[in-house]
């Protein structure tokens, strides 16, 4: 059977207005004409799970650090026998990945190294994870300490007296470099335990499949998943605050939460308000270092900086409590159900099998919760501080006349920002009357880049590029992204199929019918209404507060262990993940039947399908003519 293919990078039309897009990203991130033969030979899949919308140039930092650091643990730290890292490129604003295999003849030699390394981690898990928390906290504390103050008018007298002999600009430059380095540092730490968590999970997974050949993936996941996880803590804190507000009779103060300061003042003036505010303050550190986004975008909004967001969620929880709804996660019931599932599978085994089963489950249950919990420390907390510091720097650059507005910085890549800093400190240092050169150089470039990014966002990425391999073997690709041979085939055959149905992973059991709400990014999540079915490229667990309203969830990308799958199982919602194109195929308002047990989504009222996004133009690779 001839293998069907996805388009080549050069086959893709450039959206109108995005011509010249490749020049806004660093050269090493885009496909190169010189490497076309090599790059077209490889299969690339789009990670729209983590990067659902087009990058602004500065924002590639998250993608670069995350995917690089993931890869280094395979290729350089743990010596995974059969998997090196994941190569990646930005194409038309989206991140595409290509796993790098280990040549067959090298696998054997890596085995002893691999076993020694993972053996050490698994044998010292708790100690090393404690060290990890200390390291990560240290990074975050240092990030918090970085200052990007405006440069002084003159060097202070004290520095003259002490003979410091520095003008202060070095602090700005050092802190910028340190900001990037600290971000890089926590991304390295991010993956110290992540791949191990997946390895332990995979070992248990495969053993389960051996002894219970058709065991649903969901059952395996449930048996190792933590119930009381740090990642759910921010949402739990809001629920507790809502319950306390009800207990203290403060409901009426939450009628309109748009202006956080007013709400908090009103609470302070109310009886019992002091007690509530004390609890509110306590919850913020660290749990409000939490974003409704996923930490990878500068536009991600963090609770601690936009208090109207947590207040709005609290107000919603208060309404539900007043309606007599149960808002707390049924933790005890979830634990009891997990114990029941583990117990019933155990009972089916003889004593030898049971010993192996218990050992593997124990290891997976120890190592796996990290896969969830790290998210709070890195994506939410670290990146929250990082983006806040970037904004502080941007403010100072605006203050010095480098940029007209704070958001301009994001349209430079991080090395261009360094150039701008040299521009600033030089012009400032020499006392140039016109200030930095930047305002003479950047405005037209910024205008062009803003237009390009806007244009890139109008097109959805392809699920993948080029010809897929006969089978997808890289274990992390399969687990983390749900990119399996079957999945890729289903993407490829999507065009041939009955247009009313979608197939994905049966990520969380149950069947419901309801109305679709398509949400393309975090900024739209307030549109979700009670009892709708969420359809999104991805979901983030930080959308927690809306999950209580949902009937089911459908995503484009993500496997059994994607955040969407886990949070849905946690909230006992049916979920189908990894459908490839649900968010573009389904429209808000359509009736859906979601079967999270079988992994199918049926559009009950089919209309005509959406037109393909197309646009004229060419980019660095020679383009095929764009058809109608």
């Amino acid at each position, binding site marked *: 059977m001839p293998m069907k293919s996805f388009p080549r990078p050069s086959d893709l039309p450039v959206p109108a207005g995005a011509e010249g897009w490749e020049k806004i990203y660093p050269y090493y991130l885009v496909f190169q004409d010189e490497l076309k033969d090599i790059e077209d030979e490889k299969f690339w899949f789009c990670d729209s799970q983590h990067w659902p919308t087009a990058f602004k140039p500065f924002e590639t930092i998250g993608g670069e650090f995350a995917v690089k650091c993931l890869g280094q643990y395979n290729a350089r730290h743990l010596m*995974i*026998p*059969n*998997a090196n890292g994941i190569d990646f490129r930005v194409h038309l604003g989206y991140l595409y990945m290509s796993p790098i295999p280990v040549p067959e003849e090298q*696998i054997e030699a890596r*085995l002893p190294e*691999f*076993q020694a390394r*993972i*053996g050490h981690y*698994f*044998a010292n898990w708790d100690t090393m994870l404690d060290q990890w928390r200390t390291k990560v906290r240290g990074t975050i504390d240092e990030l918090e300490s970085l200052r990007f103050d405006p440069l002084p008018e003159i060097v202070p007298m004290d520095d003259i007296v002490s003979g410091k002999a520095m003008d202060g600009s070095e602090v700005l430059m050092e802190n910028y470099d340190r900001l990037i380095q600290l971000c890089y540092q926590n991304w390295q730490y991010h993956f110290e335990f992540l791949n191990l968590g997946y*390895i*332990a999970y*995979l*070992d248990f*997974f*495969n*053993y389960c499949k051996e*002894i*219970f*050949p*058709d*065991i*649903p993936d*969901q*059952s395996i996941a*449930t048996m190792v998943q933590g119930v009381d996880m740090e990642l759910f803590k921010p949402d739990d804190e809001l629920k507790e605050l809502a319950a306390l507000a009800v207990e203290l009779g403060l409901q009426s103060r939450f009628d309109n939460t748009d202006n956080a300061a007013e709400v908090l003042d009103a609470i302070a003036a109310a009886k019992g308000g002091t007690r509530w505010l004390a609890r509110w303050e306590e919850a913020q550190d660290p749990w409000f270092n939490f974003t409704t986004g996923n930490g990878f975008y500068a536009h991600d909004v963090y609770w601690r900086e936009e208090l109207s967001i947590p207040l709005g969620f609290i107000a919603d929880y208060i309404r539900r409590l007043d309606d007599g709804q149960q808002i707390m996660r049924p933790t005890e019931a979830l634990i009891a159900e997990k114990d*029941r*599932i583990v117990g*019933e*599978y155990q009972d*089916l085994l*003889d004593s*030898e*099998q049971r*010993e*192996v089963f*218990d*050992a*593997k489950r124990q*290891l997976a249950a120890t190592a796996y919760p990290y896969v969830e919990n790290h998210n709070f420390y890195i994506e939410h907390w670290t990146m929250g501080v990082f983006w806040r510091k970037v904004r502080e720097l941007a403010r100072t650059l605006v203050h010095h006349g480098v940029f007209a507005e704070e958001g301009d910085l994001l349209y430079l890549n991080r090395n261009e920002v360094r150039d701008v800093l040299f521009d600033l400190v030089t012009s400032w240092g020499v006392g140039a009357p016109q200030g930095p050169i930047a305002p003479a150089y950047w405005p037209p470039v910024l205008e062009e880049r803003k237009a390009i990014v806007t244009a890139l966002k109008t097109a959805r990425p392809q699920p993948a590029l080029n010809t897929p391999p006969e*089978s997808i*073997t*890289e*274990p992390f690709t*399969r687990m983390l992204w749900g990119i399996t041979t079957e999945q890729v085939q289903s993407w490829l055959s999507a065009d041939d199929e009955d247009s009313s149905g979608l197939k994905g992973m*049966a990520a969380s*059991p149950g*069947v419901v019918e309801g109305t679709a709400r398509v949400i393309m990014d975090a900024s739209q999540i307030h549109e979700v209404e009670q009892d709708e079915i969420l359809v999104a490229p991805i979901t983030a667990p930080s959308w927690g507060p809306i999950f209580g309203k949902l009937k089911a969830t459908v995503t484009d990308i993500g496997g059994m262990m994607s955040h969407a799958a886990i949070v849905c199982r946690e909230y006992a919602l049916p979920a189908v993940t990894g459908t490839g194109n649900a968010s573009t195929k389904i429209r808000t308002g359509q009736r859906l039947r979601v079967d999270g*047990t*079988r992994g199918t989504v049926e559009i009950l009222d089919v209309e005509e399908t959406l037109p393909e996004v197309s646009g004229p133009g060419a980019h660095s690779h020679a383009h095929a003519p764009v058809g109608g």
Partner: protein
Amino acid sequence: MNYVQTFHADIEPELENLGGKGASLVTMTAAGMPVPPGFVVTTAAFDSFLSDSGIADEILSELNGLDTDNVTEVDTVSARIRERLTSAEVPESVRTATRDAYDELITQCGGEVPVAVRSSATAEDLPDASFAGQQDTYLWINGYAGVTDHIRQCWASLYTSRAIIYRLKNSIPDEGLSMAVVVQKMVNARTAGVAITMNPSNGDRSKIAIDASWGVGETVVSGLVTPDNILMDKVTLQVVTEHIGEKHIELVPADGKLAEREVSAERAEVRCLTDEEVTSVASLAKRAEKHYQCPQDIEWALDRDLPDGENLLLLQSRPETVHSSAKKKTETDESVKKPATAGIDLGSITASLMKSNG
């Protein structure tokens, strides 16, 4: 000695009195499972009939020196014995007990209902599975006369030519050979089938395999249709795989008896169970397994006369023996060559990662 035992009578079921099927139905009823009501005509009733009518002695002399290779002779003997079993007078005490039990059942059902009459042999646990198949089942029997007539037919089924030859060839003595008969309210099945509390194709005990078709379950048991086949996870009750069969006929009541009827092409190709019903059937099978502490093979039916939620009935549950015994054998083989390793097993972890490269 009781000649009749109702399913719900609070008497410890004895296999030798009730036969395998009868004992199982009494046990399941006592365990609170949804078994249609009925009663068992015990082996004591059969024994009493044989001795009072003198047939016991006749059988012994008929079989004495019978040449099992002489098929014609065996057939003649078989016919003679069966003729006696279906016509000789049944003792008054047995008749009264049966009549009372039948009347009670009719009262319990709120009026005249069709019943199933099935033989329930004490020797059903013999290793040769085909032996069980020699027992008879009569469905949709109306009226007391029909019931007694078919009870006798069940008795007579002990002396078919095949049964006679089987026993003689395997030196199974006829002394002590007996037969109980189950009389049970007939389920007006909309959908029925079987369920095995394991995956019969690989012995995976974490699965439940359901076969289901339209109408009375005989079509599934006897292989008259390709049933819907649904494999479920026993622990989470999720559907793992399903194949929709071609259920081209169904067995449904017509003019006071069961008749085969064509199923429309449209209905033949849709699953004959709703999601909720699939879960209910699996839960029922699971309950039966839990009760008996070993894998079960159950027969079930959804009664079209009962309301949703109360319409799933358990008709039979017996140990699944084929795969259970096969599995033990392989386990022994494997345990010799592959000792299990507990603790952190780096070899296994490596193998897991490499598996996909295979």
